[in-house]
C-alpha cells in the first residue's frame, strides 16, 4: 500500500535527478501519498488474465532503407547548447577525481 516516507521521496527525486529543497520534499510527501492512494484503485479492477496494453494501436516495427538522408548541420544541432566547444557539446565533469 502507498506509504511513502520522506526518505522514499528523497530517494526517488535522486533517481529522477531533481535536487528538491527541504520545503519541496515536505510538500511532496503529503501530495504524493494522496495521489498514490487514489491511483492504487487500479489494483481493484478485475485484471486476472488480462493482457497488458502498452500502446493504443497494434504496432509492428517500422524500418527504412539504410540510406543517408539530410539531417541537422553541426551548427544547427549545437544551436541550443548551453556550451559548445570544437563542434561538440561541452559538459561539466562526468567523473569523480580519485
Amino acid at each position, binding site marked *: 500500500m502507498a506509504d511513502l516516507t520522506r526518505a522514499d521521496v528523497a530517494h526517488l527525486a535522486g*533517481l529522477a*535527478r531533481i535536487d528538491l529543497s527541504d520545503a519541496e520534499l515536505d*510538500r511532496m510527501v503529503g501530495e504524493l501519498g494522496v495521489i498514490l492512494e487514489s491511483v492504487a484503485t487500479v489494483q481493484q479492477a478485475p485484471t486476472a488474465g*488480462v493482457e497488458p496494453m502498452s500502446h493504443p494501436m497494434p504496432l509492428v516495427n517500422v524500418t527504412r532503407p539504410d540510406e543517408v538522408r539530410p539531417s541537422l548541420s553541426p551548427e544547427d544541432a549545437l544551436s*541550443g547548447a548551453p556550451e559548445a566547444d570544437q563542434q561538440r*557539446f561541452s559538459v*561539466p565533469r562526468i567523473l569523480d577525481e580519485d
Partner: protein
Amino acid sequence: MTTDLTRASAAALANLMATGETSSVEVVRALLDRTAAVDGKIHGYLHVDAEGAIATAREVDRRRAAGEELHVMAGVPIAVKDVMATKGLPTTCGSRILEGWVPPYDATLVRRLRAAGMPILGKTNMDEFAMGSSTEHSAYGPTHNPWDLDRIPGGSGGGSAAVVGSFQAPLAIGTDTGGSIRQPAAVTGTVGTKPTYGGVSRYGLVALASSLDQAGPVSRTILDAALLHAVIGGHDPMDSTSIDAPVPPVVEAATKGDVAGMRIGIVKELTGEGFQPGVQRRFDEAVEHLVAAGAEVVEVSAPSFTYALATYYLILPSEASSNLAKFDAMRYGLRVWPEGVDDASAEQVMAASRDAGFGPEVKRRIILGTYALSSGYYDAYYGSAQKVRRLIADDFAAAFEKADVLVSPTAPTTAFRLGDKLDDPLAMYLNDIATIPANLAGVPAMSLPSGLADEDGLPTGFQVIAPALRDDRLYAVGAALERRLHAAWGASLLSKAPDLTTLAKEG
C-alpha cells in the same frame, strides 16, 4: 468591407481571399491588431510573430496575384501551441527549462501548415509540458478565459482555445494527452478535435506521454476544424506510430452533417452524478437535437471507465518521467550550476537544472512516474494500469458494437476560478474524467459548444467519441448539432461572449 475579419471563420476567410475581397496581409493585420487590443488581458500567446506572419501572408498574396494554384487554406492564419517545434520561433512548452530555446527544425505538422501557406501568428500558452487542466501551471503565468477573465481557460491548451475564442485567430493547433484540446474547448465555447492516435504526426511534438499524445485542430466551427484536420493529418515516415492510411473524409462529413439513422450511445458512466446540473441539462438538450436530426439513442455501459482516471495517472507519469529525462542541461535548455559546490559534476548540474527549470506539477508527475516504474512496485502500479487500459479499450470495442458514436459532456463543470484547484492536484485531475478514456484507447473525440449553463452563464461542452479511424463521424455529428444549435440560438455561442475591448479598458 463589411466583414469583421477577426470574427470570420477560416472557411469564410479562405473564400474572401479566393474571390479577391480581402488579402492574407489584411487578415493577418486585423488579427494582430486584435491581439494588441485584447491579449494583455487574455495572455493566450507566449510569443507573437508579427513579422513572420506578415511575410508569409505577403508571399501568399503575391502568388495568388500571379495566378498560382494555391492550397484551399493558403493565407488563413493560425496559432500554434508552444509544445510544437517551430524552426526559428521560440518553443518553451510553458517551462523555464526551455526558456529561449529556438528549435533548429519544424514539427511535421508545422511543416504542413507552412506548405499550405498558412501564416503562423504565434505560439500559445499552456500548462508546463502539457501537464494540467487550467493553464495555471505555465511558468509564464496563466491564460484567462475570454468569457470571464477571473476563470481558467482549461488546459493544457488554454492558450490555443483562448486566442481562438477571443477572435485573435480563426484556428489553432492543440495537443491532447488526456483532454488538453477538448476540455479547453468546452470551457471557452470553442471546437476541438483529438484525432485517432497516429492520425496526425507526433514528429516535433515535445512528448508528454508518447502512447497518449495526439495533436489536433482548435477552431470556432466544425467545418474549420475539419479543414485544418485535413491539412495536418496523414502518414509521416518521421513518426513510426503514424498511421499509413488516408485521412478520413472529415471535410465531406462536416459539410454534410448527416446523422440520419446513426446510433448515438450515451455512456452511463460519463453522465449524471459528478456533472454540474447546467452541464448535464445542455447535454440532454443536445442529444434531443440529434434525435430530431434523425439519430437514434442507445445507452451503453463501460464499467472499466471508473478506473480510467487512476489508470491514466499511472501511465502518464510513467511515460512522462522517461520522456522528460532528456532535459538534462547538456545539449539544450537551461543549465544551472549548484550553489556552494566547487567543480560540480554533470550529475549535480543536471539535478540543480531540473530543480530550477521544472515547476511543481512536473516534478510531482516525474517522481510519481519514477515510483510507478521502480522495481518492486512496477507490477502493482504500472503493470496493473496497463491491464486496466486493455479493459477500457475492450469496453470501447463492446460499446461500438451497439453505437456508431458515443457521447458525453466534455467536462464535468464549467470554467472554475483561477486558483481554485491549484493546491489540490486530485481535484484538478478530475476535470479530465470524461476525456481520458478516449486517449487510453486511442480513439478520436471532439468537443463542441452545447450552450451556457443556467447557474453561471458559462459555456458547456458536448463530447463525441468515434471508433479508431472513423474521425469523419465526429464531424458528421458535430456539424448536425452545430447547425441545429445555431438555429436555436440565432447565432454562434461565441457571439454572446463579453466584449473584451470594453473589459480590457475597464480592467
